[in-house]
């Protein structure tokens, strides 16, 4: 089992190395990403005009971000009109304090949580426990992780790094009984345990897939029903949302609903799409008495102001993870932060810091599969390149920069270029076996670790052009 499963870390190379050697993890990742990617393709293919709908969704997000302050104010007004409360959390610390305060003021003792990556981002559980509350994750995968003391490794299937045997071990320890490693038995055990929690909880905490400014509606997209239970049984509901989750009108919501499930798994819709508009109404038998919306900044305004604003268009579907050949081979924990995969390679340097995460923007072959799978066509490769550029502003002149500068100079002077080619040929030619090299020195060793490298041809194309040109004249 992966050492990096338990904590945030910055040892990307070490984590990658461990992941590549972890055979059960490799098998699990191939199965997961293969299945979900097939779903993603099927989902888009089955949706009329999916390409144009994705463009439309992107335009809605671009517009919203360009007017975010207005929409946040409208959202607040809509929520307050319904009897809900809105709280503004500038930082993770503020958000924790706000939620702990809500719990205290409403005398809450036991909290149940529906899956929320935003709550992971602010390290909420620890703060609630410190304040004396019992906190239970209710998404089955997240529950297993909570018991095991680990972090999620995928947006949609957080416990993908586990096998049925490891889940059986974790749950057996928790219940104090020897459970069989059959998925059905284990899942139903989870159901039994968590049903008790739903029954006894007085505080339900969720994230928000979307928040509609026009109506004050918070939308939850789940397959298990834990999102519904979290917002039906407890007395108090707190929805924590990143401020970029707001969308303008109710009519915009189905655009995203049609794309989200299809992009994530290929389903037409997830099993439960829940639209929550305020606390329970008079005469209703269930539902929370109090509704609180906590709007979180935590670095998003800084991203909004800069050249990486597009990353805020993300609707957290996980399609880019499933499409990424790098994620497929290293899994989520290696990325070190809350968000993994291609979008995580951008968000972690931006939310945490670029200097703390120097490798993430480079751990990509820029293949573009992420952008092709993304429901809002986020240009992830371009932003990864943008982050690589930002990194160079930190270090003014390294030998690498000088090398690239020299290389660029040679390329702009054709005579120098031809000379350099001849020089390379002279140097490498004698070392080659049948035109290929088995070992390159220095940084090139990374290449020859896995493959041979070709030696420059004895006659370049431009040498041969003279003959081709002559032929043309004939």
């Amino acid at each position, binding site marked *: 089992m992966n050492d990096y499963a338990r904590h945030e870390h910055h040892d990307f190379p070490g984590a990658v190395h461990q992941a590549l050697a972890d055979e059960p993890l490799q098998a699990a990742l191939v199965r997961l990403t293969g*299945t979900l990617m097939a779903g993603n393709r099927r989902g888009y293919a089955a*949706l*009329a*005009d999916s390409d*144009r709908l994705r463009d*439309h969704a992107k*335009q809605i997000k*671009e*517009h919203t*971000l360009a007017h*975010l*302050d207005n929409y*946040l104010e409208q959202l607040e007004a*809509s929520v307050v*009109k319904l009897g809900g409360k809105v709280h503004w959390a500038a930082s993770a610390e*503020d958000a924790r304090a706000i939620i702990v305060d809500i719990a205290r003021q409403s005398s809450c003792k036991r909290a149940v949580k529906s899956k929320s990556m935003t709550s992971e981002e602010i390290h909420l559980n620890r703060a609630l426990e410190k304040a004396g509350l019992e906190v239970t994750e*209710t*998404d089955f*995968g997240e529950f297993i992780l909570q018991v095991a003391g680990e972090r999620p490794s995928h947006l949609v*299937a*957080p416990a*993908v790094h*586990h096998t*049925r045997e490891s*889940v059986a071990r974790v749950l057996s320890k928790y219940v104090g009984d020897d459970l069989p490693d059959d*998925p059905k038995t284990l*899942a*139903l055990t989870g*159901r039994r345990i968590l049903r008790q929690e739903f*029954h006894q909880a007085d505080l339900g905490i969720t994230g928000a897939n979307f928040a509609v400014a*026009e*109506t004050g509606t918070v939308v939850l997209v789940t*397959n*298990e029903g834990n999102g*519904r239970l979290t917002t039906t049984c407890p007395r108090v509901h707190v929805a924590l949302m990143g401020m970029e989750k707001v969308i303008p009108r*109710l009519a915009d*919501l*189905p*655009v995203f*609903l049609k794309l989200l499930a299809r992009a994530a798994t290929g389903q*037409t*819709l997830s*099993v*439960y*799409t*829940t*639209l*929550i*508009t*305020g606390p*329970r*109404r*008079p005469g*209703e*038998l*269930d*539902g929370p008495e109090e509704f609180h919306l906590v*709007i979180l900044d935590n670095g998003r305004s800084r991203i*909004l*102001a800069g050249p990486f604003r597009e990353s805020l268009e993300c609707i957290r579907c996980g399609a880019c993870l499933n499409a990424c050949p790098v994620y497929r081979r290293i899994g989520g924990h290696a990325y070190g932060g809350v968000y993994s995969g291609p979008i995580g390679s951008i968000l972690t340097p931006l939310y945490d810091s670029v200097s703390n995460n120097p490798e993430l923007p480079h751990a990509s072959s820029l293949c573009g599969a992420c952008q092709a799978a993304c429901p809002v066509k986020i240009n992830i490769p371009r932003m990864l390149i943008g982050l690589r550029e930002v990194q160079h502003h930190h270090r003014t002149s390294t030998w690498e920069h000088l090398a690239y500068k020299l290389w660029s100079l040679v390329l702009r002077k054709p005579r120098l270029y031809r000379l350099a080619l001849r020089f390379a040929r002279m140097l490498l030619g004698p070392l080659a076996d049948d035109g290929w090299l088995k070992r390159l020195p220095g940084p090139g060793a990374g290449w020859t670790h896995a493959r041979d490298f070709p030696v420059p041809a004895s006659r370049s194309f431009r040498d041969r052009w003279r003959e081709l040109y002559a032929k043309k004249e004939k």
Partner: protein
Amino acid sequence: MTSREAFLDRVRKAVAAGNRAGIVHPLPDRNGVGYQGAGSDPLERFEIEWKAAGGQLHLLHDADAARAKVLDLIQTHQVRKILLGSDPLLTTLDLQQFLQQRGLEVIKVQDLEAATSPEPFFAADIGISGVDFLIAETGSLVMRSAPNQPRSISLLPPVHIAIAERRQLVPDLFDLFHKTSEFSQDFGSLASALPSCLTLITGPSKTGDIELRLVTGVHGPGTVHVLMLDS
């Protein structure tokens, strides 16, 4: 400056700083893009999508057939405690009497009080409700929370029976949201027209968290039957 004002001020400044001169981002019109509809037979479309999601569907021609089917399902699932909703359709079917006459324990939602309601919800073996709409394109049930239709009825009992009529079928998800705006005829603004909880249900609850093996019934109902009245 309050924390609210500071927050919004920071966002305002960020919006201005990041917006590029001369580039406008209007809120686009959808112009029908992405509308699929349900083809010539919405019921057929619904059946395909609903069953693909793991739901069960029974087509019935009259009230007697519906009552017989309910009884049949109750016996199949070996149910003792039945939670019955107060949807007008259920009332016209007179299910309460029908079931009680056969010695089954029926708890009517309208007899419950907020203070004691969670226990019967957790104790029930089956929940029988109506629906507000069905969406053919996605294979979904649409349920609005209301005093006579609590959220729990389609959520807590492990089996859910939803009784619907063909005329409740809506072709496409986009149509539902158009319909939702029609509620505003009764109420002043759209905001007060949405219920406190509107749920789209697309099949039984499921999880694939262990090795991607699908297990139903964690945590919502693992079996959902739609009884579709054709009358």
